């Protein structure tokens, strides 16, 4: 018996309608691609449907009953998200369209005229294990501003190489932006330690929590302020919420000093043709009609996760990850990229299988109903670091069972035989 699994796993699985689906040939679905996107529980879908069928209206602007209901639902979702991450203030929670928009918002507003505007001589530090969404915005912005982009390397074991930290984070450093949990290597990064260093030189700390928010309990208010990120993003669709919505949390102190990003809609205070003034947070950064039904769905999603408990989910993920690492170790010619200790990593496990290209692995797995991801997982530099073009990745979540891991291992062995690897 594996300890640490969610006690009511079969009941939880019943909450996710898609898990009852069968695939081509009547095969059951073994969904091991949750780091890519998570499945949605019925309560999230039902909440959105109820909103669309009974309370749909535009928010803030509407004074009628439907408008009041929609506004209340939307703002309650903000409260729920604030609670989910322990935000010091609910108004510090900004709804974006996804994590990528949150990161781009931060990078762009740091490039516009203002207190923190980047310029030649300034340095931005990222890492080699970032998702493209935390690389490309900084490349674009440092190119436009003349600032310099630098990065932490990655060790052979898939950890951040902190040897050069004192050289990398220096008095020229204006921003340090890094992922909490790698979507490729699974590595959990020491964000507290890095934030402390970065804050000591006066840099702004941005944390990409896209992979952390689904599986680690987050309590921003409880963090010592030196170790707390200044800005943090995650994405709705990976925390059992809908697509079309993401979250940017930022401390009021920093958000208040950033200029607006997108213009229009409720982000204004007043508009004249000659010039405009802007609303306070959160509205300042929410231009146009926000993803209303999506926010409402996300509220239901984080509430659902909260009921189960992030500690319990984390323990479950660790148990499944440990079991998976053991299982994968039995497959001949299989090499895991990233840390091998489940206590040091998240639930995404990328690997290579000697002699079979990741696409071909994924294809054969798919023919057995096992859904994994193959490719660069939007982390080309991390792949390049390990000298590979692409990898196969399995990723579990709160609904994953040990049986599904067994199915994966069995299908990997079948893949080897299919490609006649003895």
């Amino acid at each position, binding site marked *: 018996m594996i300890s640490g699994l969610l006690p009511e796993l079969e009941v939880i699985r019943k909450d996710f309608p898609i898990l009852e689906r069968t695939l081509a040939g009547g095969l059951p679905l073994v969904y091991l691609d949750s780091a890519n996107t998570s499945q949605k529980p019925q309560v999230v879908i039902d909440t959105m449907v109820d909103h669309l069928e009974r309370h749909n209206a535009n928010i803030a602007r*509407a*004074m009628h009953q439907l*408008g*009041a209901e929609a506004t*209340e639902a939307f703002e309650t979702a903000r409260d729920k998200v604030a609670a989910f991450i322990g935000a010091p203030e609910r108004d510090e929670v900004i709804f974006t369209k996804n994590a990528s928009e949150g990161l781009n918002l931060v990078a762009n507003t740091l490039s516009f005229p203002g207190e923190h505007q980047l310029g030649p001589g300034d340095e931005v530090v990222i890492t080699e294990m970032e998702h493209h969404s935390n690389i490309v915005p900084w490349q674009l912005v440092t190119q436009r501003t003349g600032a310099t982009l630098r990065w932490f390397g990655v060790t052979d074991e898939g950890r951040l190489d902190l040897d050069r930290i004192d050289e990398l984070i220096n008095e020229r450093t204006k921003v340090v932006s890094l992922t909490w949990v790698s979507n490729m290597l699974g590595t959990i990064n020491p964000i507290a330690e890095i934030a402390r260093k970065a804050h000591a030189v006066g840099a702004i700390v941005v944390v990409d929590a896209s992979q952390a928010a689904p599986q680690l309990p987050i309590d921003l208010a409880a963090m010592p302020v030196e170790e707390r990120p200044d800005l943090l993003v995650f994405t709705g669709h990976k925390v059992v919420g809908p697509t079309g919505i993401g979250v940017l949390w930022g401390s009021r102190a920093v958000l208040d000093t950033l200029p607006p990003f997108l213009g229009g809609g*409720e982000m204004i*205070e*007043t508009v004249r043709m000659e010039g405009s003034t802007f*609303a306070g947070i959160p*509205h300042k950064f929410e231009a146009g009609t926000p993803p209303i039904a999506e926010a409402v769905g996300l509220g239901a999603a984080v509430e659902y996760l909260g009921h189960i408990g992030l500690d319990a989910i984390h323990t479950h993920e660790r148990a499944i990850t440990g079991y998976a690492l053991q299982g994968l170790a039995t497959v001949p010619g299989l090499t895991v990229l990233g840390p091998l200790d489940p206590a040091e990593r998240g639930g995404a496990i990328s690997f290579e299988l000697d002699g079979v290209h990741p696409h071909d692995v994924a294809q054969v797995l798919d023919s057995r109903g096992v859904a994994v991801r193959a490719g660069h997982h939007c982390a080309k530099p991390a792949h390049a670091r390990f000298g590979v073009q692409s990898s196969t990745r399995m990723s579990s979540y709160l609904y994953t069972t040990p049986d599904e891991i067994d199915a994966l291992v069995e299908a990997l062995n079948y893949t080897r035989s299919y490609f006649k690897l003895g």
Partner: protein
Amino acid sequence: MSAAQDLDALYQEIILDHYKNPHGKGLREPAAAQRSADVHHVNPTCGDEITLRVHVEGEPGSERVADVSYDAVGCSISQASASVLHELLVGKTIDEAMNVHGEFLALMQGKGTVEPDEEVLEDGIAFAGVAKFPARVKCALLSWMAWKDATVQARG
């Protein structure tokens, strides 16, 4: 309660009276011994605006609200609320006025569950019905937020 009753609770006679005959409207020059501060607040959603000036007099520690003068455009609720504010706060010490401010805020943000204290709020209790209309709470608070902001500035 029916929609019609809610409406009547919102538009109390007192509110409509203040709307038609606002107290203290207009911007006035402060007297020689008074300190003053102007603020301009808008409700971004609907466009209601107020320019409000607080006239403060007296020794630090025991300052009084000598006057509140204002220019405003907006709906009945926001106009009546500015008029009631004028009536309630002018003449009070700033500490007393802040206390009234706190009570009014609590009433408005109470979603209809706070019982207003007529001793403190006088005509302001007519706004109890507004608290049930979240979209209108901002209207009722526009002048009150402006007053607080201006007072903090005038006090220095």
